[in-house]
């Protein structure tokens, strides 16, 4: 569903992506792990369109999206969440998600009818919120939610656009043990509908969710395999997991 082919990117003399290739098939979760400064964020920016690659391609469902802008890639089917929570704070929980539904449902160049009265948008938003477990929070202002609830709202916003593919940037960041476990269950449940690329520091989450893991070190993928293979891979251990893992 997502394929990255020979991605190169450098900032001046600093090469941050060196020949990165990976692909994620339907129903799969592919995790990218690596130490800080390995180029994970740069990779995400190149997939989502914030940064342009120097060379190489990003394909989404077979379509080359390498030269599309951020919003065009979302329209082409890429959904993403942010490492640092990013929602619309003055909107209600429901309107946050309804706004995302609206982006994929008809023209937004309508100037007179009240958007909040559109049942089709609200119903889809409500169903999405129920799926992530925020069904009883729909009328609350997003700014009132707890950190854990905001992480779920982000996922609901990403799902609301009915993406072909999900790009999850450290969804577990800042969550406690119980919240993490609940989110892992949710992502496991979503995986069959939405293939995903997971960039995550939480090794528990990676080993429970990922079908395949790529280890990124200094802009290069140094190891790849199933979670158990990567756990045994000496290069990956040296680079990231540490001897204790």
């Amino acid at each position: 569903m997502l394929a990255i082919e020979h991605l190169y990117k450098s900032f001046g003399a600093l090469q941050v992506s060196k020949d990165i290739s990976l692909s994620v098939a339907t129903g799969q979760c592919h995790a990218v792990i690596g130490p800080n400064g390995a180029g994970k964020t740069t990779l995400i920016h190149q997939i989502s369109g914030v940064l342009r690659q120097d060379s190489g391609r990003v394909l989404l469902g077979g379509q080359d999206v390498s030269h599309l802008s951020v919003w065009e890639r979302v329209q082409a089917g890429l959904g993403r969440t942010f490492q640092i929570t990013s929602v619309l704070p003055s909107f209600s929980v429901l309107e946050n998600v309804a706004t995302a539904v609206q982006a994929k449902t008809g023209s937004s160049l309508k100037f007179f009818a009240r958007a909040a009265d559109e049942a089709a948008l609200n119903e889809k938003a409500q169903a999405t919120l129920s799926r992530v477990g925020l069904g009883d929070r729909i009328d609350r202002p997003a700014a009132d939610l707890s950190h854990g609830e905001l992480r779920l709202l982000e996922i609901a916003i990403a799902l609301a656009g009915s993406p072909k593919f999900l790009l999850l940037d450290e969804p577990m960041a800042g969550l406690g043990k119980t919240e993490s476990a609940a989110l892992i269950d949710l992502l496991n449940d979503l995986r069959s509908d939405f293939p995903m690329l997971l960039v995550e520091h939480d090794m528990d989450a990676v080993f429970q969710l990922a079908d395949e893991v790529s280890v990124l070190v200094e802009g290069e993928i140094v190891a790849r395999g199933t979670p158990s293979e990567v756990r045994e891979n000496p290069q990956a251990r040296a680079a990231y997991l540490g001897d204790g893992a």
Partner: protein
Amino acid sequence: MMDRGALIGGVIFALLLAMPVLLPIVGAEYLTGLLIKAMLLAIAAISLDLIIGHGGMVSLGHAAFIGVGAYATAIGLESGIEEILVLLAITLAVTGGLALVTGTLALRTSGVYFLMITLAFGQMIYFTLTSLAAYGGDDGLTLWSLATFFGSDIVQEGEGLYFFVFAALFLTWLGVWRISQSRFGRVLRAARDNPQRAEVMGYPIARYQLIAYVIAACIAGVSGLLLVQYAEFVSPSIAAWQRSGDLIVAVVLGGLGSRNGAILGAFFIVIMEEFLSSIFHEWRLIYGPLLVVLVLYAKGGLNDLLHPKSREAS
């Protein structure tokens, strides 16, 4: 469903509608002119609130569009065009076109840079107007003929003009609120709240912001047209950046992104100016501190003083 914002708006408009009947009774016809001035400021302030309050784009050049609208009208009148609907079409085309060009450039920036670039465009327009020697230059231009409405002079003075301005204010108030609550307005508010998020929902936000900027400029242009019709005079001073500042004060004082805030703010400014300057020559000594107190103690603006708890979707 009748919410509180609509109710307060309804009261404001009912009062304005009743004024031409009430004022002669209390013997204060001169107040009609004051109210027209306040309504004209309110129209421009509402349009500015579309981009500041709902769009999060703080422009310091909005009065320039009032000036452009006024000059487009004045030049039209000087060239012998008298029908107000034709003048309206000219005004909309000129202000809208100019906003499209300046907005495209200005929206490459945001925040304080947007403020600076709109200020710069505003000043460019202001100095262009001062250089129109054929139309009075610095001194401005007195108009000897005014616009007609289907050939009738009903919209030239008195109650006819009052109700014409009233209708323009009402349509602006209604239209901008509906826009803010529409699909388009929702995207605009989303881009104000969190531009990155709105873009990653799949919206080309700059396009929406540009459309809002053009709409706001067109409405400001209409207030310029009406200003010419009321004052029978036009001068570059109406496009000066200080006038843009007044509009920002009106919007902030009234309550950003609220339904009635811009009207309340505009009326407050016009009435306080008139009242304070009539009792005290150095009236700005009172006016300044009063603004400070209001902004400090009524954060949601005058609009929040009227209904403090019920926060509207803004």
